[in-house]
Every structure is written in structure tokens, then in C-alpha cells.
């Protein structure tokens, strides 16, 4: 890239009640620079492009290699992970905003705990008897591992929820990430034991039926989870489960 500076515009909000303001920053460009390193640079020198001193930007980040799921934010309008957003591949000025569907904490930091609550609601775990020595686990063929592993790669970044037109306060939609985890645990030889409970849970308000199949989730997912496949599979199973429950009375 030819120009030596990087222009950023960051949406700042000191508290959830405070008004939002946009601040501009000009940073010196360095090779390999990503959005998180730009935010670190601002922390070391919190001065806006017009020379006003400001505060370091509050944002979530941890691993910086797109595996912890912390640094999801909207960059030029689109939800993505800030660590893998290489500055040289993004149109400038780079406009950075917090995710819009989650309660704002401050600046680029939002509260995404709803996902973890949803995982609780669908019992996204294998209910083992205990951690004492019970010998080897169930046999699993490579083909099954290759189905489960991609689903197990979900980093809980919530990008799929942010971009989903159906994920909002009116629908209370659970979102693709949780549905994919239901698919994962229902496919595990031991996890299966809770299959019916999970499927019934997903028929509740905000469940799988709220999906509008816009398929944004699968487009945006930084880990390429087969989210739409999971939704289709789980939808069918939820339906069959409800039909069975109805017929059994």
C-alpha cells in the first residue's frame, strides 16, 4: 500500500448512557498491521487526528489469532474479528463500531453472555458420569470425527448472531452458534442421551423456527462452520421430536 498513514474512525461511547461520538485517528502504517494492533497503538498514544487527547479505546481481545472469539466488532459495517482484519486489505478510512445486537458496555465492548446462557439452555455438554477413571471413550470412526470437529471449532464470537436478521430483541432467536452445538452434541455417542431434551428446548420461543434462512451466518462465520447444514438437520429433528411428543401425548 502506498500511503504511509492509516486512517481510522472509531465510534466511541463512554458508557451505555452516554452519547456516541466518532473519533478519527491517523496512525503510521506498518507492514502486517491489523485492527487490533492499531487499537494498541492508540492506547500507547491516545491522540485523535485533530490533536485532541482522548482515552484508550475499550474493546475485547485476547488471543489475537482468531481462536478465542473475543475481538468481534463491525469494521466498515461488517461484523468480523479485528485481529484477522489486516489493514492493507481494508478500505480506508476504516470505520470501527461495536456489534449492534448486544448490550453496549463501552466503546467497542459489548456483552455477549446471552450465547453462554443459550448453551446452558440447550445443555451443550456430554453428561459424563464422572471424571474418575472409567476407561476408554466410545469408539468413533474418522468420518464421524470429521463431522463433529468442524462444529466443535465454534469460537463463540457471535458474528453469526450479529449478522442474522432474525436475531433481535423481538424474536429472542437463539442464533446459529447454539443450534450448531446442538447438532454437535446430538451426534456424539454419549452426548446423544440428552438429544430429546435439546430438541425440545430448541422448540421453545426463540428456537430454531425463528431462522429465516438468510444464510448470513454461514457467510460471515470466521471458522467456516457448516451452520446452515446444522440448522436444516436440527430443524428436521426438532420437528420430528415435536411430532413424536404430540402423538405419544
Amino acid at each position, binding site marked *: 500500500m502506498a500511503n504511509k498513514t492509516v486512517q481510522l474512525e472509531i465510534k466511541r461511547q463512554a458508557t*451505555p*448512557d*452516554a452519547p456516541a461520538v466518532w473519533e478519527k485517528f491517523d496512525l503510521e502504517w506498518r507492514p502486517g498491521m491489523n485492527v487490533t494492533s492499531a487499537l494498541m497503538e492508540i492506547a500507547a498514544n491516545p491522540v485523535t487526528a485533530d490533536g485532541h487527547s482522548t482515552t484508550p479505546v475499550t474493546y475485547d481481545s485476547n488471543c489475537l489469532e482468531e481462536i478465542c472469539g473475543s475481538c468481534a466488532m*463491525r469494521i466498515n*459495517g*461488517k461484523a468480523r474479528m479485528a485481529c484477522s482484519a489486516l489493514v492493507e486489505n481494508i478500505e480506508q478510512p476504516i470505520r470501527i463500531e461495536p456489534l449492534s*445486537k*448486544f*448490550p*453496549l*458496555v463501552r466503546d467497542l465492548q459489548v*456483552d455477549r453472555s*446471552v450465547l453462554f*446462557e*443459550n448453551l446452558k*439452555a*440447550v445443555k451443550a455438554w456430554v453428561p459424563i458420569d464422572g471424571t474418575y477413571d472409567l476407561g476408554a471413550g466410545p469408539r468413533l470412526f474418522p468420518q464421524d470425527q470429521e463431522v463433529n470437529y468442524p462444529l466443535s471449532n465454534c469460537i463463540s464470537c457471535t458474528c453469526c448472531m450479529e*449478522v442474522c*436478521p*432474525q*436475531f*433481535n*430483541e*423481538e*424474536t*429472542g*432467536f*437463539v442464533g446459529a452458534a*447454539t443450534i450448531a452445538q446442538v447438532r454437535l452434541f446430538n451426534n456424539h455417542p454419549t452426548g446423544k442421551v440428552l438429544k430429546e431434551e435439546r430438541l*425440545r*428446548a*430448541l*422448540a*421453545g*420461543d*426463540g*428456537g430454531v*423456527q*425463528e*431462522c*429465516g*434462512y*438468510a*444464510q*448470513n451466518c454461514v*457467510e*460471515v462465520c470466521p471458522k467456516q462452520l*457448516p451452520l*446452515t*447444514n446444522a*440448522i*436444516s*438437520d*436440527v*430443524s*428436521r*429433528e*426438532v*420437528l420430528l421430536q*415435536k411430532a413424536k411428543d404430540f402423538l405419544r401425548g
Partner: protein
Amino acid sequence: MATAQNPSTPTMRPGVQPLRAGQGTTFLWRKLHSLLGIVPIGAFLLEHLLSNFEALKGPAAYGAQVKFLNSLPLVRVLEWVFIFLPILYHGLYGVYIWLRGKSNIVYYPWAGNWMYTAQRYTGLIAILYIGQHVLRQRFMGISLPENPGAAFAKVQHELANPWMLAVYIIAMIAICWHFAYGIWLFAAKWGITPGTTARKRFGYICAAFGLALAIMGLASIWAFVGPTYRNAPDIAPLSYLAAPVHAGSHTV
């Protein structure tokens, strides 16, 4: 930093609430909405378009088709239970679904997202169109169940108005789109096409099917406005050829 909480602690908005596991009834209503779109509404649409196609054979054949449909047993009950009420529910619940979704194609201009949005607009066009269509063709003007021979002319008069013609053409395309993509959505969301490849292939099938329906529909419209049957008689004598047998019930 005091030992106590900051007195002016800001309040965060509650945000999207967690899944109400197993609670509530939206699953039932939403699935009903989805199912009704295929049967009976979709099935009826198919029948209607096939019946319309009779118009290409002229006013007499068209009138005969109308007469045949109106001769089905319990036709008025069928009409309400399998057509009016399902469409009303599908339409109103569809609007409710639309209002609860937040389209975002500005930031995410992806194919699936366009289709999602298009499904909502075509649905809206369909409801508005069907409302006026049923009102004007079924409940206003000459009563077709009693005068099936008047069917062709009644439609022809309607389409003589170029604005109305435009409405019919737009609605025909919108409804065929809505139905074809609706079938695709139904298959995807009920897990009939669970894989990416299956959905892609079925997408081609639905697209071809929708296109065929739209062409058929537009051809039928042409029968009314084209030169062949210009100035059809107000009450056409009905030809008593054996009418084709189709499932479902019908009123024009």
C-alpha cells in the same frame, strides 16, 4: 474506586434474551405458517394457474373450467377452509414475521440475504394483490359461481385497464417467485435438503419450476389481453367438453 459500587453506575440495556427452552408456542404457529404455504396455498396456486391456462383455449373453455370447479361438493366450505383462511393466516403471520426481522442487506449484500428480503417484499405484494383480486373478482361484480360463462369477460374487462394489467403482471411474477423460493425454504428449514449440495441442486429445480409457473401465468394473462379473444361475450356459451380434473377447489 471506592469499596462500594459507583453510585452513578450506568445502566446497560437488557439485550436479546436467552432461549426460552421448551417454552411458548411460536414453534407451532411458525411451522403452521410454513406448512400452509405449501399445502393448501401452494397447491391451490398450482391449480389456479392450471385453470387460468384454460383461458388460452378461449372464453368457452375457461367458463367450463370455472363451472367445473364450482360444481365440486361442499365447494363453499372448501373455499373458506382451504383457501381464504389459510391465505389470511399465512399473509398476516407473514407480515408479523417480517416486522420481527431486521433486514440488513446494506452491509451484507449476499445472495441468501437478498432472497430473504425478496421473500418479504413478494409476500407483501401477494397479500395486497390477493386482497383486491378476491374482492373484485369473487365478491364484486357479476357472481361467477352462478354465471361461470361470465368469467372470461370479467377478467378481460379488468385487464383492459393498463394499470390493472401492470398489477397483475407484477403480482404474477412476485407470487411465482414467492412460491418457488418458499418451496426451497420449506425444504431447507424442514430438513428435507440438509446439505449444501442438495440445497443448491434443489435451488435450480425451484428456480426452473418458478419460471415455468410465471411463464404459464403470463401466458394466461396474454389470453385475456391478446388479439385472439378480443371483445369476448359478456356471458360465453359454455363448451361441454370434459373438463380437466384437478385436485383442490377453486373460485375465480
